[in-house]
């Protein structure tokens, strides 16, 4: 498969703006048939936006797309599918109530006069499942909600392949997969490019990126930094391009021994439907990073500690005394805070002004009929103003509805919300997902500042650089268990090793956390 031929898909000077952020700024990339093209960059660098543009889910504000040399524009994802571009989105795009077959061929059911040909549908589905080597694992008429995360990921891939498209876009396809499933995928991708398909591929796992990709494009902060041949670059170079500086300067100083204080939170043998025998200690002044694959139980851990999906057995000790935490309110009462992963779904009240967002937890603890102070509490009437200064939210007015703020500023609001309720135990779940670099840096600063001020911080992150750079200790989860703990500065490999269930003799098993909890991730 030579590069002689012209690019099958090309983006020229694409710009896309969203309220508050320029997601992509004048980006130009060429994608060649028959090769894997990896797109890397930090969260918020604009990768997913680019993919959605290529797949017709968004339309660019400026710039053009070219398919096989001719200019095209999509007003509806369908149009992209029709020319032969299919995509696997980062967040799952399946209907849990419908069967595998119905999902894969949604909108393209084989039919005569509008009547679906069931047998044909089943046969085609079988065929597609075979292509991803999942025909034994997954039955075409199984309802998707009954499948494990990994299986659902395979269905997504099968769906994408079913278009027989010339370009396949994969947004973090391996995030949820255990190693041997990743191998299946790798083999699959090799087969595809052998047939001349162009595969565009987003991943945070540099091992994969360098195994698979021929070309690597680096995005940063919505800008196209560079496109390099994989064999002409080293991971560290790419990382440098991604973050724009050397990794080790990128994160704030770790805690000095004398900064770490008494145990603030301790979980002993905590278990519930999704978690098994969790034990961990969290000290005042330290940041404990939690790593693990999607579906490994990272978020469930946070939810259990915070009383959203409480532990059904085991004990929680706060500052040495045992406390039952069955509701978030109870947790907040114990001066805990939880900066959730999914801002839109769990963090903000989009239609409410900034000040009400920030004061929500404070007020939740007050008497229901207590008269409100608009911008603070009885003690600190100016609290909101102070916090907005402190976390540096860029907003025209503190009466602004938060739906009109950029992702980064929204995240700062969520953070301010917990600062307002003066927590001394703070849980962060993906604190910097989907926000641009400088906002990211300042949030990292804040988290560290909080720790130095004596707050005990539990930080869940799927971004290894973040975990490695921020954590004073690293806890790795797999299959609802804590599969190991690593000291500050542990390497990516060591973490991935634990995160994929090794050292725990679970080699064969597939992580199978089921149900909504994981679908939200």
């Amino acid at each position, binding site marked *: 498969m030579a590069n002689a031929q012209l690019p099958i898909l090309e983006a020229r000077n694409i710009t896309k703006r969203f309220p508050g952020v320029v997601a992509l700024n004048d980006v130009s990339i060429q994608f060649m048939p028959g090769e894997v093209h990896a797109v890397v960059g930090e969260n918020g660098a604009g990768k997913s936006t680019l993919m959605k543009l290529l797949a017709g889910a968004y339309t660019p504000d400026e710039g053009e797309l070219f398919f096989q040399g001719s200019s095209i524009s999509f007003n509806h994802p369908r149009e992209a599918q029709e020319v032969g571009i299919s995509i696997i989105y980062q967040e799952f795009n399946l209907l849990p109530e419908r069967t595998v077959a119905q999902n894969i061929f949604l909108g393209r059911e084989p039919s005569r006069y509008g009547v679906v040909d069931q047998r044909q549908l089943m046969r085609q589905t079988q065929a597609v499942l075979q292509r991803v080597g999942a025909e034994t694992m997954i039955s075409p008429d199984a309802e998707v909600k009954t499948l494990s995360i990994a299986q659902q990921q395979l269905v997504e891939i099968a769906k994408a392949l079913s278009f027989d498209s010339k370009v396949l876009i994969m947004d973090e396809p391996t995030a949820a997969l255990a190693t041997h499933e990743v191998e299946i995928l790798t083999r699959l991708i090799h087969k595809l490019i052998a047939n001349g398909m162009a595969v565009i591929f987003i991943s945070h796992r540099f091992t994969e990126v360098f195994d698979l990709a021929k070309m690597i494009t680096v995005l940063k902060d919505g800008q196209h930094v560079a496109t390099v041949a994989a064999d002409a670059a080293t991971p560290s170079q790419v990382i440098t391009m991604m973050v724009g500086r050397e990794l080790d300067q990128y994160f704030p100083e770790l805690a000095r021994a004398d900064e770490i204080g008494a145990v603030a939170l301790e979980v002993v043998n905590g278990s519930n439907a999704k978690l098994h025998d969790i034990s961990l200690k969290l000290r005042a002044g330290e940041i404990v990073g939690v790593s693990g694959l999607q579906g490994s139980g990272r978020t469930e851990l946070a939810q259990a500690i915070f009383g959203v999906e409480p532990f059904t057995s085991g004990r929680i000790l706060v500052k040495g005394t045992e406390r039952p935490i069955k509701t978030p309110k109870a947790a907040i009462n114990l001066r805990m805070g939880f900066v959730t992963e999914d801002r839109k779904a769990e963090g903000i*009240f989009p239609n409410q002004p900034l000040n009400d967002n920030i004061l929500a937890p404070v007020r*939740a603890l007050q008497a229901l009929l207590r008269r409100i102070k608009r911008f603070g509490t009885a003690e600190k009437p100016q609290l909101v103003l102070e916090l907005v200064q402190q976390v540096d939210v860029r907003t025209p007015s503190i009466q602004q509805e938060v739906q009109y703020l950029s992702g980064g500023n929204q995240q700062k609001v969520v953070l301010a919300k917990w600062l307002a309720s003066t927590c001394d135990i703070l849980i962060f779940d993906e604190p910097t997902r989907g926000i641009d670099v400088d906002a990211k840096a300042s949030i990292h600063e804040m988290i560290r500042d909080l720790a130095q001020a004596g707050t005990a911080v539990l930080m869940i992150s799927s971004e290894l650089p973040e975990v490695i750079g921020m954590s004073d200790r690293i806890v790795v989860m797999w299959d609802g268990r804590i599969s190991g703990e690593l000291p500050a500065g542990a390497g990516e490999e060591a973490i991935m090793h634990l995160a994929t269930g090794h050292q725990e003799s679970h080699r064969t098993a597939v992580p199978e956390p089921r149900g909504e909890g994981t679908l939200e991730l």
Partner: protein
Amino acid sequence: MAQLSTIGQEKSWRDRILSGLRSVSPIYVVLILLLIGIGTQNPVFLEPSGILNLLRRAAPLMILTAGQLFVIVSGGFDLSVGSIMSLTVIGASLLINNDPTNAWWVILVLFGIGIVAGLINGALVSYLKVPSLIATLGMLLALRGAGLYWTGGAPRGYLTDNFRAFGRGWLEPVPWVERFPYAVIVLIVVSAILIYLFHYTNLGRQLLAVGDNPRAAKLAGIQVEKMRIVAFAVSAVTAVIAGILQGGFGGVNPDAGDGYELQAISAAVLGGAVLLGGRGSVPAAIAGALALEALFTLLNLLGLPKPLRDAVQGLIIIGAVAYAAFSGRRSR
């Protein structure tokens, strides 16, 4: 809009003005237009006594709407209020039993009944997870039957004058307007209380939060179930008050509240409340109710055939919501 908000400080004054404008609900403009319209038709209606008459007449719907808003904002519907109103009138006529001295404890009992009904609504929605539309629809049917079953089909006694005073009586003499309807006093007091509760206490903010994003509300320590129940209770209480006023104004009548539930929802929506929660203002909702009542009066004065009044009402409601949806999308 959205762009402005993030371009930063230097433009913020302009943003403030715009957001200020946005925060003034168009319903007030509509209301004023309608009142002017009425005035041009018949100035009498804009004299103090005329206004007071309009207010007295609209009081039940206005109060009912204010209560309904508590439920709508928290993300639900309350279809049972009309039945609660009727139940109030029927129950009063039975319990008072033509003896004025009974009126006072009867009123307490009625509030008791109302609150219980509200709590049932809330419990069905919060704990049995029955969609509020269905739960309150069931209550609408059940309560409508219950009232009549209780009294064997027709109200049993007269509503005594002291009971009716709330809906019918006057405070007099009063300067400027020689007499001032108690109903309007009730309206003012209740409105004041509800406005205070909704806009000046945690209650209102937490209801908004629950309606806007229940999951986030739970994670912020708000007791979502409890808030929903409170909302339905408030709505039911306003229904009882509306029933007392309505019964007082019109006298015994087995179906005093029929059809009020949809009017209240429409009025709240006219007042800018967003169905399924997260947005709404008590004063605007009350204005919406008054506007609806004023609209009826105006169409009446215009001699517009009654049926067409429904049609116009329908168009206005759709228009109002479409407008809201539109301006909402625009600013996003």
